């Protein structure tokens, strides 16, 4: 057990090194690369679509949000461009439990429940984005609040400060990053190749470290997760279930694990859709811890701001959709209707998954 705990800490350090390597890689490409990247995601729809597609491809919002934080930290991505991307990551991550629900496709009633359990997360995130993204673009309320919180937390005014901040964690990360950078510099003089190599190393480290943290933490926490879910089944849901969802996700660093664990329970009919719903909302909040951790490695305070924006976006979504019973039921009703239709027309499932998570984001990037 202790070996696993130590391994998790080591992988966490490796994760931060990965974020820093990614940041260094983007910087090594040069200023024009940043400009090209801005152009690519200059439209909020394109940025949102990029966030969805990237998350679907890596099957992990933790990896995509950490990457976004690294890009913001390097200055390659502005806060304005990053906000829709991070919202897109929220939508993209729901594909994992939707895929998990397909395991029940041969059993009519079981599949209907499983698919509704999976798509409730989709509908919640889609509605949140549909309401909050236009509001954010119009008023900037999320990023403004996050900037204010960043100023409070760092004690700096990020609007005027351009000096990279320092901390013991960042100092510790500099040692391995220095070694990697020198090794890459020794290999080639071409800035683009250096940048690409560091970028690839960064992404590989982020992916490997997060996967390993998730695997080890899942093993460390399995007994406790099982006990808390058993208690939830006997006591019902509500805010407690939301906290359970959040804590499980923080501990395993993956909202997909939390939401996918619920699918067989919903499919078997032992966990109602109403009781699974708050757990997924808690998972939405819990998964934002990864971006917050990633911001520890970044040079610029904007990295922390985008991470806080991610958290505020999910908390605002809950405040908007959960407290009022009539509003709370909207994602439930939509998920149930889609599941009923999917049960009758199985081909719709494939159309939904490919359409919502692949085709529409590709169109969003290409057209907008």
């Amino acid at each position, binding site marked *: 057990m202790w070996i696993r705990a130590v391994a998790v800490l080591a992988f966490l350090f490796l994760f931060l090194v990965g974020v820093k390597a990614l940041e260094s890689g983007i910087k090594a490409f040069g200023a024009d690369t940043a400009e090209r990247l801005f152009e690519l995601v200059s439209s909020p729809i394109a940025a949102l679509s990029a966030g969805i597609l990237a998350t679907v491809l890596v099957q992990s919002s933790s990896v995509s949000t950490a990457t976004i934080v690294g890009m913001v930290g390097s200055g390659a991505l502005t806060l304005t461009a990053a906000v829709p991307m991070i919202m897109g990551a929220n939508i993209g991550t729901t594909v994992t439990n939707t895929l998990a629900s397909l395991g029940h496709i041969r059993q009519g009633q079981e599949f209907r429940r499983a698919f509704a359990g999976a798509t409730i997360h989709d509908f919640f995130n889609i509605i949140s984005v549909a309401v909050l993204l236009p509001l954010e673009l119009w008023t900037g309320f999320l990023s403004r609040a996050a900037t204010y919180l960043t100023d409070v937390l760092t004690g700096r005014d990020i609007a005027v400060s351009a000096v990279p901040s320092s901390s013991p964690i960042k100092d510790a990360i500099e040692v391995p990053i220095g070694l990697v950078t020198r090794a890459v510099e020794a290999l080639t003089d071409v800035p683009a190749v250096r940048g690409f190599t560091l970028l690839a190393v960064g992404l590989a480290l982020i992916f490997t470290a997060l996967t390993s943290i998730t695997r080890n933490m899942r093993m460390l926490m399995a*007994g406790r997760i*099982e*006990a808390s879910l058993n208690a939830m089944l006997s006591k019902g849901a509500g805010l*407690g*279930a939301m906290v*359970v969802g959040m804590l499980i996700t923080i*501990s395993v660093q993956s909202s997909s694990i939390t939401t996918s664990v619920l699918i*067989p329970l919903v499919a078997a009919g032992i966990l109602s859709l109403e009781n699974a719903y708050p757990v997924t909302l808690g998972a939405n909040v819990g998964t934002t811890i990864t971006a917050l951790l990633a911001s520890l490695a970044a040079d610029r305070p904007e990295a922390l701001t985008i991470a806080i924006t991610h958290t505020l976006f999910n908390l605002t979504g809950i405040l908007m959709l959960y407290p009022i019973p009539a509003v709370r039921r909207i994602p439930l009703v939509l998920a149930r209707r889609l599941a009923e239709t999917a049960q009758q027309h199985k081909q719709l499932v494939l159309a939904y998954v490919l359409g919502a998570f692949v085709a529409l984001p590709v169109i969003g990037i290409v057209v907008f």
Partner: protein
Amino acid sequence: MVFELFKGQSGSGLEAVEARIEEMLHTCGEVLGLAISAFEPGMSAREIGPLVRETDRKVNKTERSIRRDLVVHVSVQSGADLPLVLVYMSIIKDIERIGDYAKNIWDVAAALEDGGPDLSMMDPLFERTIALVSEIADAYVSRDTERATALLNRCDGWLDEYDDNVDALMLSELPSTVGVPQALLNRHLKRVTAHLMNVLTSVVMPFDRLDYWDEDKIDRD
């Protein structure tokens, strides 16, 4: 439910399932004892009836709750110990059936409440069955293979004995008011014994041969 995440328990939730199976076995012994007590002189089957049903409901409730825990376990642990989960599913079904047969035994007592034949010849069979529940529970919990094998062999003999009793009753000249209750009780006790044996087969037999002790003699030999 939030506190469970911070409690010391970090092992498999199957330990809790194991404890509840033991509890379920003891509750089964209780319901069987209650049903059989309806045959004692001076006891009223009607008065005992609600207790029998209530205790059986407790067995059923525990079975459903264990099933839920097993689904949670499989979901969280990704089916790493799926064979064990399937064994538990098989065991709890057998224990639950014992509760049902206890009710069937009580049904016989209730039908004879207003003046039935003397069934005292059944007393030794009743007593040994009640004692068997505890013996099976102990052997199961301790995973004592030697004791389990000895118990299974002994029970195997009982199954034959119950069959012989029923065969003899069918050919006997006894009036139906005496022969039918005896035959029914022999049949119910045989099923209780067989289900208890099924529980114990999990200690000594591989998963695919669970429940087949009595039909697998050639293989065993």
